[in-house]
């Protein structure tokens, strides 16, 4: 017997209310525990970049986002902007998706599960929590698509142009599927010309006014490395949810008989998959949304299958929903952890009080941007530092380390629990900590719970 799970508008309203709470959760969690920090190292990196542009009076920008932030910084506090934009971007994207689904006549259960899976997919959560260009691109692309469906070609072109100003690779990704789509709908060819001109103008604006690059690059490493970097369950922060991918593939195979009917979607998917691999762009996020919609279809198809063991059908339903929710909460947990530790922030503020700026701080490479943001001092190690040198400095406990400190004018060392793994040697001792405790060149400046600040005095 085929089952249909009908839903009503109150359920949709509840859904949006719950999603709003979910999107605000990491910020609310921080406020609840009495601190108000940004999520993710990238946010601090972006603010540091903007601050540098302001300080240096530069008149060139890496990307449109820098330009917008530069202009906005004189009106609004960037920290507030960084929190509010991703939240509204997430909600707006879901609302547009809802309208798209209505326009495409999705049945209620498919619409509900598709929206749910989109909202809980790690990549969607990523751009709804952390500020990036994707927070602008996704609503623009979705709006362009919605207006295209509504046959409002001029408005659609405008939003397509805005998307390509932020991410020019979208022009390359979208142009062929757009052609096939309009051709299939037997639309006037002038609409295609209008849309392609808009996309082209957007891309040219980027290339003319911004110095960022859109060059493709072939990923290094094996297929397994690639999967580990792009699938969330293996720990990738900006990755696809494995369960949603499986559901999407389920739909893909079950829908194979309709492949001609859906050929435009498959063409778009092919472009998105290739672009996700070779461009560091928003393609991955768009792909994730499409995969989540497919997953919604796949899930409904599985639920509507003829089951002999009715209990197993229920178990599958709960197991899938549990996995998707678990995956989302694991991501939220990682996101909350990505904001700097409050003790580290206190330690950095203390350093700033003592010496306002200009010194070098040695700490975990992951903290480099946070160190500069809160203390005004540069970090000795950052994400691009030579791993061998990082290992050597943290593990070694003889005079060779002192030479490195003197030569590079390192004044402060900050260590915390996360530095333990970096410092621990085969002997089981923590190299750098051991050195600082036993060498007169180091003086403990302050301690904030597990975060220790040492000053190099020689």
């Amino acid at each position: 017997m085929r089952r249909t799970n009908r839903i009503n508008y109150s359920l949709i309203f509840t859904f949006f209310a719950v999603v709003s709470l979910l999107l605000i959760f990491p910020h609310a969690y921080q406020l609840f525990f009495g601190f108000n920090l940004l999520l993710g190292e990238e946010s601090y990196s972006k603010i540091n970049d903007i601050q540098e542009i302001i300080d240096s009076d530069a008149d060139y920008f890496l990307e449109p986002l820098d330009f917008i932030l530069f202009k906005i910084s004189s009106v609004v506090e960037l920290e507030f902007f960084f929190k509010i934009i991703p939240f509204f971007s997430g909600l707006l994207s879901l609302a547009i998706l809802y309208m798209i689904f209505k326009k495409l006549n999705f049945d209620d259960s498919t619409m509900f599960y598709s929206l749910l899976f989109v909202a809980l997919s790690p990549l969607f959560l990523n751009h709804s929590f952390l500020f990036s260009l994707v927070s602008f691109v996704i609503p623009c692309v979705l709006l362009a698509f919605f207006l295209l469906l509504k046959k409002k070609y001029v408005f659609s072109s405008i939003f397509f142009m805005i998307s390509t100003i932020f991410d020019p690779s979208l022009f390359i990704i979208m142009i062929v599927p757009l052609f096939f789509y309009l051709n299939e709908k037997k639309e006037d060819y002038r609409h295609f010309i209008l849309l392609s001109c808009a996309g082209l103008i957007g891309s040219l604006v980027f290339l003319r006014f911004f110095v960022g690059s859109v060059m493709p690059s072939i990923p290094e490493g094996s297929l397994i490395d690639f999967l580990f970097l792009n699938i969330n369950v293996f720990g990738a922060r900006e990755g696809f949810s494995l369960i949603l991918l499986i559901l999407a593939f389920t739909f893909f195979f079950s829908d194979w008989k309709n492949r001609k009917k859906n050929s435009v979607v498959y063409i778009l998917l092919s472009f998105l998959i290739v672009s996700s691999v070779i461009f560091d762009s928003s393609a991955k996020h768009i792909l994730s949304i499409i995969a989540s919609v497919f997953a919604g279809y796949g899930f409904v198809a599985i639920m509507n299958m003829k089951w002999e063991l009715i209990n197993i059908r229920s178990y599958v339903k709960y197991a899938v929903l549990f996995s998707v929710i678990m995956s989302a909460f694991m991501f939220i947990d990682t996101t909350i952890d990505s904001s700097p530790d409050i003790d580290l922030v206190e330690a950095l503020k203390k350093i700033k009080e003592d010496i306002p700026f200009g010194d070098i701080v040695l700490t975990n490479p992951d903290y480099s941007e946070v160190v500069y943001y809160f203390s005004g001092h540069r970090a000795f190690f950052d994400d691009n530092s030579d791993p061998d040198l990082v290992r050597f400095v943290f593990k070694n406990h003889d005079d060779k380390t002192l030479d490195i400190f003197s030569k590079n004018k390192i004044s402060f060392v900050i260590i915390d629990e996360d530095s333990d793994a970096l410092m621990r040697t085969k002997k089981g001792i923590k190299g750098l900590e051991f050195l600082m405790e036993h060498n007169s060149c180091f003086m403990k400046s302050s301690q904030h719970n597990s975060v220790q600040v040492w000053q190099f005095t020689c």
Partner: protein
Amino acid sequence: MRIRKEVLLVGLIFVFVLALRLYFAFQTPYFSDSESYFSLRQVESITESGFPVFEDELSYNGRDSIFLPLFHYIVSFFALFMPSWIAVKLIVNILASLIVFPVFYFVKYKTKKEGVAIFSSFVSAFIPVFLFNTVNSFSPYALTIPLTIILMLSFLKINQTKDPLIFVSGFIFLLLIDTSSYLLLLAIMLYLVFSWSDNLKIGRSEIELILFSIFVTVFSYLIIFRKVLLVHGPLFIFGNTPDLLFDNFFRNVDIIEALFGIGIIPFLSLFVAAYLYLSRTKKKSVYLPLCFSIVVSVLLLFKLMPMTLGLMYLGTMSVILFGEVFSTILDYYDRMKISYLKLLFYIIFCVLIIITSIIPSIYVLERSSLSLSNDTRINAFSYIKEDMNDNSVVIASPELGHMITHFSGAKVLIDQNYLLIEDVNERFDDMRFIYTSAIGTAAMSRMDKYSVEYIILDDSIRELLNISYISYIDDECFDILYEKGNVSVYKKKCNVISQ
């Protein structure tokens, strides 16, 4: 409520086997393998703090451990009411003795002959390899093997019952106790392939159940063992065993060892059943244990699973198949003119089972109490405990690692939990160098690399590295802390000054 006669008989077998097991288990307060001491530490930690030791400061000078702690929690509950070592021995032996019940019901389901089922359940209590590995050690297989048989039976009945609750709950339980649950999945998949190829009807329920089980297994293990996968990739199935030890764990199948580990009659039954049911008769219920045996044999043949674990599963499946073969022989016998000699036939089989399964079992039971943990070694560890400081590191055979941390509380250079240790080969090579080097300064320099202070020389390391003594040990740089029998503990006094 009246208890049926056959259940009472199986109950008596259970009591007899349990008594025998407990008699041998409590001959010594120690365990027969080092792994048990690792589990004992987890039980003690759970009883004290509510959590196992996932961040172990003693193993490998400090490391993260990943394991499934459900079985430890089960035993910890009982350890609240008695000393933990007693709880471990008691619970493991009770669970292992319970194997007679699932074997009885499984064979009864297949053959519909209660006598054969009782006889098979009796034989299942005396699988030498299963006895040896569960009588005096903390082995989760005491629970997983009986549970696997229950799940197999539940799976076979699913087309009639249409109720997956027992299978699903049991499978999730199995999943959280030990990773060997994947064997059951592989066996069921092969069983479905065999049934399909023989045109036997495959129920939709069976397909739904196996797909669900695969889904749950893949997802649970991806989440639990994510870190292991990230560190070791697909090679995690070999447990990151050092290259030089690989052949000890994942070794070639030794037919003689298999013959005596499983018991000659059940072992031969395996081949007879394979011949009968793969070439002549089609019987779905026999396919499942047969497919399980094939899966295990193939994995053993390609060195994809540890020998001992493989033999334990193979032994259990052989006993189930023995029931089927025995039943077939009885049917054949009934059709012959000498059917009045049936009793004699039973007696002959009993004698054969006594000679080939029970006597070897008693032998292994005796051996299990005279194994790795003997008083000489334990005394050596207590000497270290009295002499050491908090950062002392001990070097010994990996086999002794968990015992040393349990008895002395000292850090060890290497033990048998190799997962997540990225420099395991380097450590093993250094350990080998320290024991085999002829030049003291070179060996001591390696010891300094890990702050090693104590060296234990005993038969396990002599056997592993094929040495009889450490050539550079002298009075100048080493104190003999303990020397008795074949066990010596040396304490290092000198440090090598690096230029």
